[in-house]
């Protein structure tokens, strides 16, 4: 049976097509999910893609959080449904309080698009098990509000519990606290990531194919769980 991964389209989502392509290249079946639709169509996992949901006019992800589909996703995530939020998706996860902290305006105040080196710190989450802990990868990064912030206690907790999933190497592109590029919840099923692994899945269109691991990880996990 093929693994079905839902990819949500909010008005203003931009990388939804790319996320579906990445899911397909990883060998799973992408299932489009519509923001107004509560029904998750029995998917085995969900990707919240990048973009500017609802224009990101209030705060990134702030309006998307209240969409019908998010109600189901929040409920599902609490039951263990694997959810990956990329960029705007990460922002939606923080706004939804599935992940702690928030993403703020880049410290240099510009949108930045670059090929970013990362270290995968935690290779035990639903979305990172194809990697080795400590593995270095290069994937595109593109955001205007990607600076991860949380209070010191939360940051310490994330570190202590190994919940920092990925960290920026060589250059911190947005002023994220402790070079954090991605985090996970306590259960490891919800992951938020600022860089874009879905743009590094084909040699022709990405700087590397290092991003594919996020999408194969979920396959591996679902195949292995009874």
């Amino acid at each position: 049976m093929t693994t079905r991964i839902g990819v949500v389209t909010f008005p203003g989502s931009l990388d939804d097509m790319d996320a579906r392509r990445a899911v397909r290249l990883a060998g799973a079946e992408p299932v489009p999910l519509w923001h107004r639709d509560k029904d998750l169509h029995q998917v085995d996992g969900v990707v919240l893609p990048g973009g500017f949901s609802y224009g990101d006019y209030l705060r990134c992800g702030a309006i998307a959080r209240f969409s019908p589909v998010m109600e189901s996703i929040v409920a599902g995530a609490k039951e263990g449904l694997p959810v990956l939020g990329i960029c705007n998706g990460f922002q939606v996860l923080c706004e939804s309080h599935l992940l702690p902290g928030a993403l703020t305006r880049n410290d240099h105040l510009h949108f930045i698009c670059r090929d970013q080196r990362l270290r995968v710190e935690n290779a035990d989450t639903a979305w990172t098990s194809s990697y080795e802990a400590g593995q270095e990868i290069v994937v595109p990064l593109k955001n205007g509000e990607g600076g991860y912030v949380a209070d010191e206690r939360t940051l310490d907790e994330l570190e202590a519990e190994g919940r920092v999933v990925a960290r920026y190497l060589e250059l911190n592109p947005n002023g994220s606290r402790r070079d954090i590029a991605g985090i996970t919840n306590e259960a490891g099923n919800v992951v938020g990531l600022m860089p874009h692994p879905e743009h590094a899945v084909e040699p022709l269109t990405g700087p590397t194919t290092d991003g594919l691991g996020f999408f194969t990880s979920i396959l591996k996990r679902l195949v292995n769980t009874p």
Partner: protein
Amino acid sequence: MSLDTVKHAAETPETELPWAELGLKPDEYERIREILGRRPTGAELAMYSVMWSEHCSYKSSKVHLKQFGEKAPVSDAMLVGIGENAGVVDVGQGYAVTFKVESHNHPSYIEPYQGAATGVGGIVRDILAMGARPVAVMDPLRFGAADHPDTRRVLPGVVAGIGGYGNCLGLPNIGGEVVFDSCYQGNPLVNALAVGVMKHEDIHLAKASGAGNKVILYGARTGGDGIGGVSVLASETFDSTGPAKRPAVQVGDPFQEKLLIECTLEVFKEKLVVGIQDLGGAGLSCATSELASAGSGGMRVELDTVPLRDSSLSPEEILMSESQERMCAIVEPDKVGRFLEICEKWDVIATVIGEVTDGDRLEIFWHGEQIVDVPPRTVAHEGPTYHRPYARPEWQDALQADDAAKLPRPKDAGELREQVLRLVGSPNQASKAWITDQYDRYVLGNTVLAQPEDSGMIRVDEETGLGVAVATDGNGRYAKLDPYTGAQLALAEAYRNVAATGAKPLAVSDCLNFGSPEDPAVMWQFAEACRGLADACQVLGTPVTGGNVSLYNQTGETAIHPTPVVGVLGVIDDVARRTPMAFAEQGQLVYLLGDTREELGGSAWSQVVHDHLGGLPPAVDLERERLLAEILIAGSRDGMIDAAHDLSDGGLVQALVESCLKGGLGARIVVPDATDPFVFLFSESAGRAIVSVPRSEELRFTDMCGARGLPATRIGVVDGDALEVQGQFSIPLAELRQTHEALIPSLLA
């Protein structure tokens, strides 16, 4: 004021209207009275004045633009030519591609962020209106001196606006230009290009046919944005009229436009649309009159049904408003329900505002009273035509006589090295990464090449690898020295850039940025540039499919350099065969293709080292450009070359530096015998490129060049981590990189 109805206008012929304030000339106003057989109503006057403005009617330029059609080479690829929102080109496998470049110069000077943002929004709607999914944007930009305080105001705003809008639309930015020259102080050039892809059967046109079909306005509500903007902005220099006449600035809402795109593509997919037009300059005046004029019947519009953002707007203002993110569709009555449903799905407001009639008039009503009754063609397509006087300026001879050959040259190898560094660290040759890193180049996942490559390349079909490449170029310095040749050089460069990546050039779009057409010298530059471009397109077999003219780019009496910007679109059967610019492997051989003559007029060297502009621009040999392109395409297709980079401003040394830095590999270069090292490195002879050839392919490659008669000179090898010109100098890549990359951030960050 009471409503100025058609009836009232007929009864009050003596009423004076402010036609002069709206930018109409006495004879133009007289002509409107003749057409209507009475005085126009206020609403009619509003429509004629915006539609007959320079910006909408091309009244000064169209006698020259005609040549693009008359001299157009026969091309099987051309599906839709000049006159529609954008041209459409067949790229094979059932796909068609549309692209167009447009200017938003004056608004971007007044309000850089919004001016540039709405420029992107406008060109994307043009592409969408053809039936295509927009897939990429590019932004040829020109600013005043890099270190001028106003450049610090204008440039970051423009770049943020282009990024803010394009990134939020989800369109990769795949290339453009950034040029600094004090002639653009006070007149920055913000041109924007968009590319779209569709299947042949999805091509849509802007015409209203079928009596009884409904006219649907959808997208943003109409507000007081840019009222009169078209006529004021395009027909006057704003500094001469003072700030009082500055129109309200238009604010873009890229999120609304993204919804408009998705919603429009969905109604296309369900074949719900008979004709469609975007609302840009001149807003509803333009959309209704153009749709009706191009269609078979007339049109009746109930203007009071238009959804407003500001309820105090008068009918004239509604007709002239340039509120962004709106489209107008013609839909059969039984499909209206489904059309509105799709709009609702995307949270897009849609309103039936009128219908196509079987008459031949455009009639507009306001709460039941008729305020417009005009033959639509007279508004949209039969505006005034000027044969403005033009004359070669008397200073042209002196300018051309002021030959760059006489400028002092570097005395020794040390000075040569120093001038190389000054060149690659000068504003126009320095890396633009600080700017282009603010643009998303990855979104949609089909970007195969983006800046700083020679052209941007987009995959069109994931299965077959079919793709298109686009490059834009323009060199105002060359065009100032000789506008005919300058326009041809712009085309030649863009054509060469497309071929350098392995794509076959197919078609052209152009944006002609000039000073005031009322100045015979400027008009001559314009006429010469059109003639040059049309002649060159004929030889290269690349028809002009559309474009844009921006006049009145001047401050007081001083015009900008004549600046024709040319975009070339090419096709490549399999993007996997593309050629990037970076040297990729140590030991590969570097070949220089083409002939190097001593050509320094208008060169980057003459600007950077001597602040000089004089002499003649490089000579153009279009047959040579064709041959070079064929070799570059064959080399790419057959795997004979691993890197290619065209030579343009800055000459050979600039190209070498860029190819080295991009790949992080050095090169050892040998100056050929009997060649002056300075000329070898800095000359800007056209029709040249460098390639890197794997040793295993050398014979095959040189045989091909030999057989076809293209000079190919082995000038060195990819090697080490410095750029070394033997017997002259060696510069470590780290030093080159520092010089090349540090300048722009130091000026702007």
